[in-house]
């Protein structure tokens, strides 16, 4: 119980810091005034611009934490992270098409749709390739994921070379790929919150199956699980969750890898605890990373994916060195 309260405090504190941070720092009191409907320009700016963004960042982090927990549970590999099965490659390809290919629809629509379709489509492709190869087991899925990611990456590079010219800058694609939050409206935040809640429910429904899978495939089968079907379902749910986060925040690495480890380290491996804890830890981490992204080098904004990689990597190594082998 104490741990859950600490987690909640961490998430709220991270969001609070995010709300205060930026190329102009504000006091917590100012944030409170903005939430309570203050009339000043500062309150309006905070309420319309910064708060929705910070909350959206936290929700993106929650989605990454969820996807990471599911992927690590399915693959039983401490290095498993959400971009493993082509999700990153597919999302990046979809985004590249949206950003570089002149399409009939507006980019505000095409970018999220194509990023999501790319992420999820790539995963479906990986599952299809594994089925064709004869097995839906973990090694085949991983190998298919590596192969599909390589092909998608090559396609993206080709598109970038072929379609870039003086009018279209590759910087646009790169900045998306490196991760970063756009500022959503409150309606957008509401939509994202609903998506996150649905993702949480879907991932929690997988918890008992993931626990059984953690005992090994023989034991899971002996305990009544259809391993092939469950793995495919879990991978689809995990990838959809990741695709949703990529749609809003671009490619934000490391969080999906670290959050489940941190959750498991304190709570043990039962997924009905690891899954929500991983979501909360992911939310806090991305909210903090977004705060750093906005405030470290004002007035410029560092891409979010760079912050999570640079700040998060060493922190994770530190945790690794401290902890025993209880991932």
């Amino acid at each position: 119980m104490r741990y859950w309260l600490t987690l909640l405090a961490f998430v709220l504190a991270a969001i609070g810091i995010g709300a205060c941070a930026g190329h102009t720092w504000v006091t917590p009191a100012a944030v409170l005034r903005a939430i309570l409907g203050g009339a000043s320009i500062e309150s309006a700016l905070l309420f319309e611009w910064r708060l929705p963004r910070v909350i959206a960042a936290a929700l993106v982090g929650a989605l990454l934490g969820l996807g990471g927990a599911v992927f690590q549970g399915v693959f039983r590999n401490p290095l498993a992270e959400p971009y493993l099965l082509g999700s990153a490659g597919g999302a990046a390809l979809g985004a590249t098409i949206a950003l570089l290919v002149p399409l009939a629809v507006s980019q505000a629509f095409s970018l999220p749709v194509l990023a999501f379709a790319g992420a999820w489509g790539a995963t479906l492709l990986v599952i299809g390739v594994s089925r064709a190869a004869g097995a839906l087991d973990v090694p085949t899925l991983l190998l298919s994921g590596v192969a599909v990611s390589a092909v998608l990456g090559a396609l993206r590079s080709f598109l970038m070379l072929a379609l870039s010219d003086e009018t279209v800058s590759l910087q646009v694609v790169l900045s998306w790929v490196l991760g970063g939050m756009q500022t959503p409206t409150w309606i957008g935040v509401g939509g994202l919150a609903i998506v996150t809640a649905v993702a949480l429910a879907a991932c929690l429904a997988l918890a008992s199956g993931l626990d059984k899978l953690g005992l090994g495939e023989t034991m899971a089968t002996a305990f009544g699980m259809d391993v092939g079907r469950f793995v495919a379902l879990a991978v689809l749910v995990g990838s959809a969750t990741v695709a949703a986060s990529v749609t809003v925040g671009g490619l934000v690495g490391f969080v999906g890898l670290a959050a489940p480890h941190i959750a498991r380290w304190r709570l043990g491996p039962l997924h009905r605890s690891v899954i929500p804890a991983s979501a909360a830890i992911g939310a806090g981490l991305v909210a903090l990373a977004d705060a750093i992204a906005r405030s470290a080098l004002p007035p410029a904004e560092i891409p979010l994916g760079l912050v999570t990689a640079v700040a998060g990597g060493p922190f994770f190594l530190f945790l690794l060195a401290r902890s025993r082998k209880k991932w």
Partner: protein
Amino acid sequence: MVSLAAERISVVRTDRRLLDSVSFATGESGSIAIIGPNGAGKSTLLKVLAGLETPTEGTVTLAGEPLAGMPAARRSDAIGYVPQHFNPHWDIRVRDLMRISLERARLENNIQATLQLTLARHGLEAFRDRWWSTLSGGERSRVLLAMVVATDPPVLLADEPSASLDPRCRLDLIARIADHGRTGVCVVVMHDIDLAFRFFDRIVMMNGGRIVADGSADSLFEPSLLDDMFGVRFARSRQEDLRFISAGWPLRSDGKSP
């Protein structure tokens, strides 16, 4: 009470015939030991009976119903399987392992009480909060058995459950498993010939993917079938109603001992 039956089971994997038209039925209760040299097909037969491996030919029935089309949950309610190797991927507490096992029985409200009872039944209350990585081999096999029988499956299948245990742990574990045969069915693949003849009512001998002999422990105790199958001269004795058997010398190719 349910029974398992295998009819003309063959298993062929990459040109090797692991099982050759094997037929076997358990009856509704009793303890059965399957013994035989390495590579005889014992573990494969057990996996086919557990529904973990699909035979190339033949059918397995559980209480008369084919295992092949049965929903996995119903199969796992009826059959408990103790694997030869078990190592949970993430380090986990004993109580959480028991919880995962008990979740199958869908006793949502009563899980804590049943958990406590199960631990007590197997003398594992002191292990409740211990991490798997801190348990010894003997402790792990006790926890594994407790996990599998926690939901009281009428059929218990165990694959070399006492491998790499010290004599005391071996005796204790095999005695517990064989005891299951009093109220249900237990089938154990084992290399401990001495414990097979001591604790089990029925012995099945396998060699080269076939069943070579199948009968009561008494009827199979004296004949030299065992010696021929293992290529070893066994020493036999009886004390009250306990049968003792142990491997003596390897047989020479002319059938005589050195």
